[in-house]
């Protein structure tokens, strides 16, 4: 479309401003993490990443509980991803391949469930898990996370399973495979891209989660990384921004990398059903 030079200059100028605004916090987190606290405290900020030091990262690795929280985060995230993919694949096959009574109810329930605020449920979740003797346990936290990643995972995998022609399963069955077996030997490998996308989504959710972890894991040795970061931040009381930013960077970078891979699908899943095509 034709547009005047003036409006092009305006659009590009505005774009530059928005780029600066939206990228600045991440940029600032990174540069601060490579600067000595003595420099950070000196008057006047330094905008260019000069004089890089790994001192802050060293202090993070040496800090109390970083190692245990990292291990806890890996465990709960890994468990959530594996269980979510397995259960969601089965459910996705059910709603995609069969027309059964209650199917529509099941799908509507999935959509409604996606809207329930975790911030409200955390109150009773504490008592439920206490009753099951699962407070301060990885299993307990996984139970909380699993339910919340389930809707997105099922909904997105359903789209992938729909895309696999059922004739392929039938062919395997003609060769003597059982129906259930055909789902695993034929359909499962073909929805691998969907498993990767939903697996990454589940990873990001569990890795980032703060509210459930806050109420469920209330012992220092049971902290996950977000809890560790907030205790570290709270304990520093604004005196160790270098260390806090190094910790933030370590938590954020894997998420950003993964997110860049799957953001299109996440956008589609969040408006599930609302967008065609």
């Amino acid at each position: 479309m034709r547009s005047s030079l003036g409006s092009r200059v305006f659009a590009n100028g505005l774009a530059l401003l928005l780029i600066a605004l939206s990228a600045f916090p991440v940029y600032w987190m990174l540069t601060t993490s490579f600067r000595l606290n003595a420099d950070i405290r000196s008057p006047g900020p330094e905008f260019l990443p000069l004089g890089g030091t790994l001192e802050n990262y060293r202090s993070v690795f040496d800090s109390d509980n970083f190692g245990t929280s990292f291990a806890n985060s890996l465990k709960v995230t890994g468990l959530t991803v594996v269980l979510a993919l397995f259960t969601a694949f089965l459910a996705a096959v059910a709603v995609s391949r069969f027309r059964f009574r209650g199917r529509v109810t099941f799908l509507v329930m999935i959509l409604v469930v996606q809207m329930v605020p975790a911030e409200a449920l955390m109150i009773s979740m504490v008592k439920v898990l206490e009753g099951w003797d699962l407070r301060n346990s990885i299993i307990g936290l996984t139970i909380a996370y699993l339910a919340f990643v389930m809707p997105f995972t099922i909904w997105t995998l359903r789209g992938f399973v729909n895309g696999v022609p059922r004739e392929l399963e039938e062919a395997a069955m003609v060769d003597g495979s059982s129906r259930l077996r055909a789902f695993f030997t034929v359909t499962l490998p073909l929805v691998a891209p969907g498993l990767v996308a939903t697996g990454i989504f589940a990873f990001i959710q569990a890795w980032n989660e703060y509210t459930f972890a806050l109420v469920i894991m209330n012992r220092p040795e049971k902290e996950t990384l977000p809890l560790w970061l907030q205790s570290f931040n709270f304990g520093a009381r604004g005196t160790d921004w270098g260390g806090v930013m190094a910790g933030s960077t370590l938590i954020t970078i894997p998420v950003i990398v993964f997110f860049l891979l799957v953001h299109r699908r996440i956008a589609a899943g969040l408006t599930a059903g609302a967008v065609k095509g």
Partner: protein
Amino acid sequence: MTTVLSEERTVPGPPSASGGTPSPRRSWRPPHLLPYALTVPALVAIGAGLGYPLYRLGIMSTQDYGLRQQFGAPPEYIGFDNFTDILGDTYFWEVLRRSLVFCLLAVALTMVGGCGVAVLLGRLGRVMRTALSVSLLLAWATPALTATVVWQWIFDTRFGVVNWALTKLGFDYEGHSWLAEPLSFFTVALLIVVWMGIPFVAFTLYAAMTQISGEVMEAAAIDGAGSWARFRDVIWPAIKPIFVVLVALSTMWDLRVFTQIFVLQEAGGISTETNLLGTWAYREAVTGNHFGKGAAIALVMVSITLLLTVFHLRQMFRQEEI
């Protein structure tokens, strides 16, 4: 999702493993147990992590569930006392009003900002568009907790870059504490929530706008429609359905905002003047050990969200068959 499910209704499933003939149509099929079995793990997961806790939340809201129950005393049924208690509390109305105003402002700013960014994305050249998209993705991808911690650093009292810049510009912001006073506290919180919220809205609206054919836009331009007229008469009607869905989603998300408020409260040291529904419920229940009252507050949150969900789902079902 690209699937057209109505087609499936005419295509019967493949014969079960035990069935012999692969005939395309059969008048009677034995009821399949397999689909039900396949959904059981998902139902168990949702039931244990969501259904049952939701049920317990309802039960707890009718109980006197406090410190004594912590030590094993059975909770006492008190009917709707928790609700009459909070509804009669002026603090509840204050927090509710605060939450609604915060939500309204956040949604309005996110939608207007997101819509503007989407229009802008459509007008940029390829290089600039990619650069802007990547920056937006960075903001979107950053976890709520680390984002809040980083913004806390940007607005830090002594060494924060915002105070430095404002002081350079001639304002007296040396040592200004942003989080110690409710109004500026909520300004920072709003900034974080909107900063994180705009990218998703912008990308989704931009995707909807790219569905509008270039010819229509060209024709409108040739007919002399200015950019505002083109937006109002061509773009807006095309994006309106998804816009409404985004408003509903953003409202639900911004009403329940917790992490950003909670972390800023810990940094600033004021919570009574800055509590929203989520942080208040948490502080009543977990910190103050009034689980019954906390559950009642949380249920108010759930109810408002459910009302919005009903509206949201009705919008969605108008657009796609399940």
